[in-house]
């Protein structure tokens, strides 16, 4: 790798360090109790992750997030693909989506809690709602853009309509779907934390707000760091998966295009 390449791969790291430095200096300057320094906050991380209760809480959050995300993916991809190919399905769901889209899903949390309690079900449902829409939207766009001649080619090979949906529309729309899933993943994390802030019972969001109540500011900032790191790690891992799944849609750059 060239020096430039190394610099490029390390640039997020530099950004992180830079941010932490600014934080450190600002907090030393301001010197208020509610704004601990970056070092103090980082030092508080091991004690959170080392504490069995806190760790279980965080894992619990991740579990709910994963369930909500998987359910949303399983629901949103087929729906989006059908909307993209069948006009009647799109005509039915598009207006519904237009209404639901701008509503902050966390704002539904109080009602959902009223009906379903403060437990897992409510939180998973809110995550599901938050994540579904972008995935539906991207699956819809991807499915709509599938070249008709590709489907005709499949039909001429004797593929039935459901078969074409599964074996042509789905893979052809995959790059677009995965873009939606990436947005969905980050949204899942956001909705997860928000839901736990509202339904204060367990989870990473709960730890954060409990320590705020108890004025343990280093824990508050440590939790923010942990949640932020989770977001970055999930996103990076997903990006890796995504690239491996849609390599075919990127040209190979070391390939000569000459022919015969």
């Amino acid at each position, binding site marked *: 790798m060239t020096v430039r390449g190394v610099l490029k791969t390390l640039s997020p790291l530099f950004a992180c360090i830079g941010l932490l430095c600014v934080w450190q200096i600002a907090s030393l300057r301001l010197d208020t109790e509610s704004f601990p320094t970056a070092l103090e906050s980082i030092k508080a991380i091991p004690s959170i992750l080392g504490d069995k209760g806190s760790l279980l809480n965080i894992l619990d959050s991740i579990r709910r997030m994963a369930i909500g995300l998987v359910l949303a993916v399983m629901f949103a991809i087929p729906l989006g693909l059908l909307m993209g190919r069948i006009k009647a399905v799109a005509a039915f769901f598009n207006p519904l989506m237009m209404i639901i889209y701008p509503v902050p899903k966390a704002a539904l949390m109080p009602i959902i809690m009223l009906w379903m309690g403060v437990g897992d079900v409510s939180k998973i449902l809110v995550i599901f709602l938050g994540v579904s829409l972008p995935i539906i939207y991207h699956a819809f766009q991807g499915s709509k853009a599938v070249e008709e001649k590709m489907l005709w*080619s499949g039909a001429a090979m004797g593929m039935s309509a459901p078969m074409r949906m599964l074996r042509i529309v789905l893979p052809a729309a995959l790059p677009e779907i995965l873009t939606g899933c990436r947005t969905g993943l980050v949204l899942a994390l956001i909705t997860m934390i928000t839901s736990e802030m509202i339904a204060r019972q367990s989870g990473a969001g709960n730890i954060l707000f409990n320590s705020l109540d108890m004025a343990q500011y280093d824990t508050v900032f440590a939790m923010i760091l942990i949640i932020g790191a989770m977001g970055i790690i999930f996103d990076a891992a997903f990006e890796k998966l995504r690239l491996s799944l849609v390599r075919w849609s990127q040209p190979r750059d070391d390939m000569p295009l000459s022919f015969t």
Partner: protein
Amino acid sequence: MQVVSLRSDAHAESEPLSGRKPASAMIEIDHVSQRFQTSGKQSHLALSDINLTIEDGAFVSILGPSGCGKSTLLYIVGGFVQPTDGVAKVKGKAITGPGPDRGPVFQEFALFPWKNVLGNVMYGMRQQGMKKAEAETRGRKLLEMVGLKGYENFYPKELSGGMKQRVAIARTLAYDPAVLLMDEPFGALDAHTRTRLQNDLLDIWDTQRKTVLFVTHSVEEAVYLSDKVIVMSRSPGSIKEIVDIDLPRPRKRADLLLDARFQKYIVDIEKMIDDGKDHL
């Protein structure tokens, strides 16, 4: 070889070679009309009362100004579009939808971008339930035939236009359709690649003797390849003239370009198409 038959059925010359039984109708188009709904209550007659019979094993080209319904006619035979009037038949049976007896090749290639070259070619065979190993062997053989040996693992994105169209042709030949439906398959290619592919297509047709329905914009291409050239006119799309191309096969481009009959066919057909334009 100077045994040039003067019979109008150029096709008959090849009979002793392949020992085929007398030509029978492969495609019959019977009073087919196609009307498209345009904006509002208006409609547009894209095809008006088309009647046409294409014999088994014939190479037939369709020529005409753009918008005269060439693609639409091909799509009707493919079963991708249902005609608003009349019937199209293949082997005597009315066409109700697409089927593996009619293989399309489109100008846009329409390859499956998530499959590599071999995967694309194997796709149709796998759909028909052929065993993987068998499909792979046949796929590799077809790729060799279209000159793409060594490119099996490339993805469509990594190929030039000519290579993509070769893959598309191999993919369609793979499931062995009786009829090839080609809609300006070489239209997007440069002149050199186009000539090569024309020759390769003729070679393939010589050995496999499929019925080919071939839409093109190029008069020269149509005359070079075909037994029969159908000249269409526009508004409404209809058949203006059918020209039998009585040139010996196998055809060699270099010989034909110097052949007065070849040149005359081109001039005559160009005149027919130009006549159509006067009426606009």
